[in-house]
C-alpha cells in the first residue's frame, strides 16, 4: 500500500472522480432540486414541496407506491423460498460434474435479455398460449384461459427474472460451509430442521441478505415485466415515472417520483443491512 501522494495517484483518482461526480452525484442533486420546483407560470419556478404534496394528495399515486413496495417484498420472499433449496442442492448435494453443470444451467436464462424472457412468458400464459392450450387438451379447462395480465403473472415474471441474483450468492456462501460442520451438527445429535436453523441459515446469512437486496431492487425498479405481464393496469411505480417524463412531460413531478423510488429502495436496503448486521461493501463487493 502506498500512502504518499504522487502523480500516479491523481491520475488514477481523476477518472473515478469524473465518473462519480458528473454521472452520479451532480445528476442526483440536480434531480432533487428539480423535484422541489413548482411551476408557477411560463418558465417561472418556485421552490416548494408542491410535487411531493401532489403525491400525498393523490390516492392513486400512494396506492401504486405502496403496491410496488409490497409486491417487490413478496417477489423477494418467493425468490428466496424457491431459490434456497435449489442453491442448497447445487452447493451441498450435487457432486462433481453435476454440480458445475447445474450451476451453469442456472445462469443460462440470464444470458438473454429480460425482454426475451418476458416474451417467453407471454407466449406461455396468454389466452392463445401454450399453457392455456395444454389445459384444454388435458381437459382441465373448457375454453381458452387468460393467464396473463394479473398480479400472479407479474409475480411469476419477477421471480423468474430475479432468480439468478438469488441463487448465485446463495450457492457461493453455502459452498463455503464445510461439510464437516454439518456432520458435526448431526454427530452431536442435531436433526435436519435444527441444523438448518442453527448452522446452515446463520452461515448463509450474508448470501441471503445480498441476494434479497439485489432481487428487491431489481423488482422495485423493474419496468418491462409489470408492463408486459401485468398489462395496462399493472400499477407499477416506474410506469408513473415514465409517463410523467415521456408522456405528460411533467419533469418536476417525475423527478419527485424518482426520488421517492430511490428513497424507498435505500430505506429498505439500509434496514435489511442493519437487521442482519451486514455492510454494503461486503454484500455487493
Amino acid at each position: 500500500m502506498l500512502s504518499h501522494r504522487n502523480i500516479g495517484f491523481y491520475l488514477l483518482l481523476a477518472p473515478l472522480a469524473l465518473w462519480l461526480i458528473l454521472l452520479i452525484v451532480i445528476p442526483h442533486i440536480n434531480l432533487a432540486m428539480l423535484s422541489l420546483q413548482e411551476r408557477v407560470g411560463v418558465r417561472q419556478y418556485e421552490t416548494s414541496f408542491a410535487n411531493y404534496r401532489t403525491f400525498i394528495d393523490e390516492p392513486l399515486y400512494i396506492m401504486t407506491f405502496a403496491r410496488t413496495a409490497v409486491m417487490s417484498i413478496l417477489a423477494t420472499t418467493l425468490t428466496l423460498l424457491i431459490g434456497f433449496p435449489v442453491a442448497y442442492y447445487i452447493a451441498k448435494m450435487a457432486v462433481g460434474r453435476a454440480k458445475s453443470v447445474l450451476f451453469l444451467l442456472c445462469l443460462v436464462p440470464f444470458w438473454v435479455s429480460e425482454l426475451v424472457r418476458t416474451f417467453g412468458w407471454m407466449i406461455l400464459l396468454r389466452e392463445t398460449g401454450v399453457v392455456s392450450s395444454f389445459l384444454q387438451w388435458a381437459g382441465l379447462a373448457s375454453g381458452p384461459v387468460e393467464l396473463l395480465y394479473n398480479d400472479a403473472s407479474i409475480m411469476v415474471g419477477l421471480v423468474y427474472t430475479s432468480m439468478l441474483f438469488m441463487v448465485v450468492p446463495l450457492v457461493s456462501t453455502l459452498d463455503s460451509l464445510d461439510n464437516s460442520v454439518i456432520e458435526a451438527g448431526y454427530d452431536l445429535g442435531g436433526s435436519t430442521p435444527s441444523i438448518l436453523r442453527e448452522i446452515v441459515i446463520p452461515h448463509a446469512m450474508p448470501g441471503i441478505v445480498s441476494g434479497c437486496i439485489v432481487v428487491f431492487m431489481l423488482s422495485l425498479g423493474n419496468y418491462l415485466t409489470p408492463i408486459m405481464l401485468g398489462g395496462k393496469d399493472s400499477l407499477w411505480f416506474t410506469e408513473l415515472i415514465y409517463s410523467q417524463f415521456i408522456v405528460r412531460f411533467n419533469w418536476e413531478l417525475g423527478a419527485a417520483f424518482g426520488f421517492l423510488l430511490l428513497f424507498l429502495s435505500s430505506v429498505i436496503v439500509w434496514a435489511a443491512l442493519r437487521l442482519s448486521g451486514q455492510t454494503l461493501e461486503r454484500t455487493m463487493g
Partner: protein
Amino acid sequence: MIPTIPRSPVVNWIYKAYIALFFLYLALPLIVVAVFGFNDSQFPSLPWKGFTWDWFFGDTQPRVGFFHEKSILKAVGTSVFVGVCVSILAVAIGTTNAFLFNRYDFRGKGALYILMILPLVIPGIVLGISILVFSSSVANVAWDSIKWDIEALRPGLVLVVLGQFSFVATIATLVISARLKSFDKTLEEAALNLGANQLTAVRTVTIPYLAPALAGAFVVSFLMSFENFNTTLMLVGSDAPLTIAMFDRLKEGSTPLLNAVSLMLMLGSSLLALVMIAFEKR
C-alpha cells in the same frame, strides 16, 4: 442434508423432483420462444402450423425474416455500437479504479468505495432520469447563455452510452478488483528487482495477469449494455437499440419474427459465453 447423511428415499425423491421442476421453470420460456420462431404462422402461438425458415430468411411481406428486416438489423448494429463503447469505457475505468483501491491508502477511501458501489443500488430508471435531467439543464444553460445547441446532450446514443456506463463501470471495477486482489505483489517487486521501472512492471507483469479479468469484464459489460432496458428507455433518441426496438414492436403485437430475433440473441450470448469460458481456461 448432505450426501453422507442417510435420508429416506421418499424425501430424496421429492427433493430431486423439485429440482427438476425448477429447471423446467427456468427453461420453459426460452424453449417456447425458440420453437415458435419456426412456426409457419403469423402468430407465435398454438396451433403449430408446420416448420418454416421464413422468419429468418424470408424476404417478402408479410414474411420478412430476421436477415432481411432492415430496421431490426440496424437496431442490432446500434446495440453492438453502444455495447462496445460502454465496454471499452467501463474496462478502462474499471482498471484504473482497481489499481486505485488496491494500491493506495487515502482518507475517505471507504466512503469513496461505497459511493462507487452505489450505482448498482440505484434503480436503473432513476439513473436514466437523473442523467436526462442533468444533461438537459446543461444544454439549456449552453443555449440560453451562448446560443450553442449541444446536440450530444439531447436524448440519443451519447446519453445512452453515458447512462449505461454510469452503472456498468461499477461491475467492471468489481470484476477487475477481485482479480487484482489475488495478485501476488512480490511478482511486481521481482520485476522491479530485475530492472523494470514501475510502469513497465505493471505493463509486463500485472496487466497480463489481469488479462482474463479484463476480457471477462468486457464481455459482462457488453452483455449488461446489450440487455439494458430501463436506463436506455429514458435516454433513447431516434436510434433505438435492439431491446427498445423489440419492445416497441411487441407493443404493436408480436410475429414469429421476434422469436427469430430472440433465438439469434440466445445464440449470440451462448457464443459470448463460450468465448468467456475459453478465456478463463487460458
